[in-house]
């Protein structure tokens, strides 16, 4: 009698989601037991096609986790293999099984390391606990994808989401997009780093940064993990400043690590911190955004603007984007694929700007050829920084496909 009660006291672990409105996810419940091997109860939307594959995968994952005896209930809504693996691992950990063993899916391909100042016009947020958004995220042409572990993930789901994001970094082809992960605030964020950094994300977004100490803690953790795994390629950093104190400290934060490539702002939390309403034209955050632009430029990194939350208002988005660029931002956040094209157009150099830059570059090249120390356009002298800016603009325009 008492033996059976003791068996039932070892708790079951559950992870994932199921239901009629759920797609591409799976709910897994693992109930450990003393004997009887692995017993799997499978309900799946794709049972006629992948039922056997799901059973085999479950057996393999549990074996890798060292789980010998358990009852497993799976309710699948068409989850891809990397999702099933993540949910099984999360459920096992929640049941106190597996001892932290990682069951990693096959890696699709590791893109070239991303360059320090690559284009970051648009960065598309993808909720880190909703796998249906992952698989086609790279197809919409954003410059970067952000797999988010912070605000879009429920506090009770942080452990499961980080395994899902880790698996996605291995198994999903994000094409040419820069692969970013937004970790949680410290200290939770350090646990996120342990799972995701071994999979070589291109950039880590650090939320709610107020001091350079936070940057250093993240940077040190990343350095340790890279050393453990023999990773030499860069993992860039982008601090998100979301409070009045952070805005005050913006420059100090921007220079806190040589791996910082961009600085950005979170307007929802910032306006909440000030106790003001967030308006579509952003008058209340003007100082903060200008401070970000100034600090970023002073530190030699990119200034990136916040998201524009009203997905239905593409005209408002265009106006915001144009204004953002005029202020000195090089890109902004993005919450829906339909925003991407509008954002890219807003941050593109105008034909007039391109023409002017072409003239400057031509004058520069002519001066080079003639061995002249001074670049002149008509009667005007062109300073070196102006030439650099023109060259950069032309490179950008080329990359955006704006040149004939």
């Amino acid at each position, binding site marked *: 009698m008492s033996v059976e009660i003791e068996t039932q006291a070892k708790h079951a672990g559950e992870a994932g989601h199921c239901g009629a409105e759920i797609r591409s996810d799976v709910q897994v419940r693992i109930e450990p037991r003393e004997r009887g091997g692995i017993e799997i109860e499978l309900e799946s*939307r794709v049972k006629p*096609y*992948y039922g056997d594959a799901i059973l085999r995968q479950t057996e393999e994952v549990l074996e890798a986790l060292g789980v010998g005896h358990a009852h497993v209930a799976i309710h699948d*809504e*068409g989850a*891809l293999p990397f999702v099933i693996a993540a949910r099984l691992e999360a459920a096992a950990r929640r049941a106190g099984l597996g001892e932290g063993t990682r069951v990693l899916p096959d890696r699709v391909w590791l893109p070239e390391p991303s360059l320090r100042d690559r284009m970051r016009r648009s960065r598309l947020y993808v909720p880190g606990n909703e796998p249906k958004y992952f698989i086609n995220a790279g*197809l919409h042409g954003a410059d970067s994808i952000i797999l988010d572990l912070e605000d879009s993930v429920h506090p009770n789901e942080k452990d499961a989401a980080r395994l899902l994001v880790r698996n996605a970094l291995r198994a999903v082809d994000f094409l040419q997009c820069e692969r970013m992960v937004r970790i949680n605030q410290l200290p939770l964020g350090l646990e996120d780093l342990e799972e995701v950094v071994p999979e070589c994300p291109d950039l880590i977004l650090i939320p709610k940064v107020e001091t350079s100490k936070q940057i250093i803690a993240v940077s040190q953790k990343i350095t340790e993990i890279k050393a453990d795994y023999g990773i030499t390629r860069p993992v860039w950093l982008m601090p998100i400043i979301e409070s009045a104190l952070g805005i005050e400290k913006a420059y100090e934060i921007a220079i806190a690590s040589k791996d910082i490539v961009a600085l950005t702002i979170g307007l929802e939390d910032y306006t909440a911190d000030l106790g003001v309403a967030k308006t579509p034209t952003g008058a209340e955050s003007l100082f903060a955004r200008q401070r970000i632009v100034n600090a970023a430029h002073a530190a030699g990194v990119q200034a990136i603007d916040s998201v524009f939350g009203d997905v239905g208002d593409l005209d408002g988005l265009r106006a915001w984007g144009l204004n953002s660029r005029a202020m000195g931002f090089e890109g902004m956040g993005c919450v829906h694929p339909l925003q991407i094209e509008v954002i890219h157009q807003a941050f593109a150099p105008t034909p007039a700007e391109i023409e002017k830059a072409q003239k400057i570059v031509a004058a520069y090249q002519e001066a080079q050829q003639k061995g002249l120390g001074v670049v002149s356009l008509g009667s005007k002298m062109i300073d070196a920084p102006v030439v650099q800016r023109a060259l950069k603009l032309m490179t950008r325009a080329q990359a955006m496909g704006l040149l004939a």
Partner: protein
Amino acid sequence: MAILEKTELALNAAGRMVPEMVNGHPQIPYAGVGKYQPRGNKAAPPIRTAADYPENGDKRVADLETALRKCGLRDGMVISSHHHLRDGDRVALLALEAAARIGVKDLTWFPSASFPSQKSAIELMASGVIDHIEGSMNGPLGDYCTQGKMRGMGVLRSHGGRWQAIQDGEVHIDIAVIAAPTADPFGNCDGSHGKSACGSLGFALADSIYADHVIVVTDTLVPFPCVPWQIQGNNVDYVVTIDSIGDPAKIVSGTTQITRSPDRLRIAQLVALFLRDAGIMRNGFSFQAGAGGIALAFVGYLKQMMKEAGVTARFVRGGSTKYLVELLEDGLTDYILDGQTFDLSGVQSMANHPRHVATSPFTSYNYHGKGNFASLVDAVVLGATEVDANFNANVVTHSDGRLLHGIGGWQNCLAAGCTILAVPSFRDRIPVIVDQVTTLCGPGELIDVVVTERGIAINPCRQDLMNAVKGSKLPIRPLQEIKAEVERICGGKPQRPNRGDRPVAIVKWVDGTVLDSVWQAG
């Protein structure tokens, strides 16, 4: 349960096993595109005399039951109906239930399509009133058929194929029941006006011409003449007035919504870009759009490109919705040729605009005639449930073999100059690009382009299209390559669900030959 006899199977030109006898009629296996030569003359209904019909032209009778009796309803007859009232239709079931009350059995129901709201036809099948359905079946009716519970075999035809079957005498309609939004006592009727207006009544036209007896059922009777008149009262026996022929909310939608899914919109955008870059979009061109999904969403992108290029289409075909109406009103197309009207905007436009014209399955799609409109269209955008590496496609079942959709005009549209299937490469974890389609509905040689979110595949037999897009920035890829990517993402090839060994329905090609079988499942 089902009383299907063991049936002989033959291998057709597409490599599919098909029954040689269906519901007591011998069949001709598919022989290839354009290969089968029909013989003989068209069917003809009996000659009538005006002496047998009211001189004052008032053909009204008290109710449907009376009308059916006067038509001489007997066991084993073929009763037909149309689906222009879609899921809001009340009339087809009313007619079948009236037949049940009269006490007949073994009827064949011959709808131009059936809808989920007609699922109580299952009870009529179980009780023996209906022997089998020849027409599309989905939802509960589809499952009933797929499970092998129907007494006779199901027959799936395209819109054009249904006209061809009636015209050639393959299906002899004893009594046609025509729901009409407006009618006069002589039997002239139309769908463009009335409280249950539905636009065109084209699917009932063949029934009105060839059936032995024709009953018109309306909820809006007008004094003679009912103008416009798409159906001639000279072909009608009886007119019945009821309170309501259908639920307007389910007949036409108030307004059509374009999909907001970013994945589907990306495919739609690629379709429009392909039409532009391949040079198909040019002054005087023509195209056909669907009623929803990607097959409608591409119109928005194409419209923008047409404006930018200053291009006007000669005609567009549909499935009319407000999106096509806007093209007409903005002067981007000269004509709309409309086979089926899906929203209020379409209904009003057809009623008011002289260049928004109703077509019928005869003019649009009939293959056994002197040509049809479908082959005149430069480009058509269609969906599919499955496509295989040879561009063969399926539209009636999903990969588990269950009946899901009717064919509609899909097969007929394959005759267009450029046939484009716009599909996601996989849905959840179910591949759409497969090794072999579960049910063959369209031969690959007629399918020119497959547009997915992962790339565009052009049929190798269309070198002209491949040359046309050389140098374009479009993601052109071999279909095999897209398929391989899908299989990698889904974790390998899918299992093939076990197929039953007895056909429960057949899929006819546009010429009446048998293209494939639907096998018992579940």
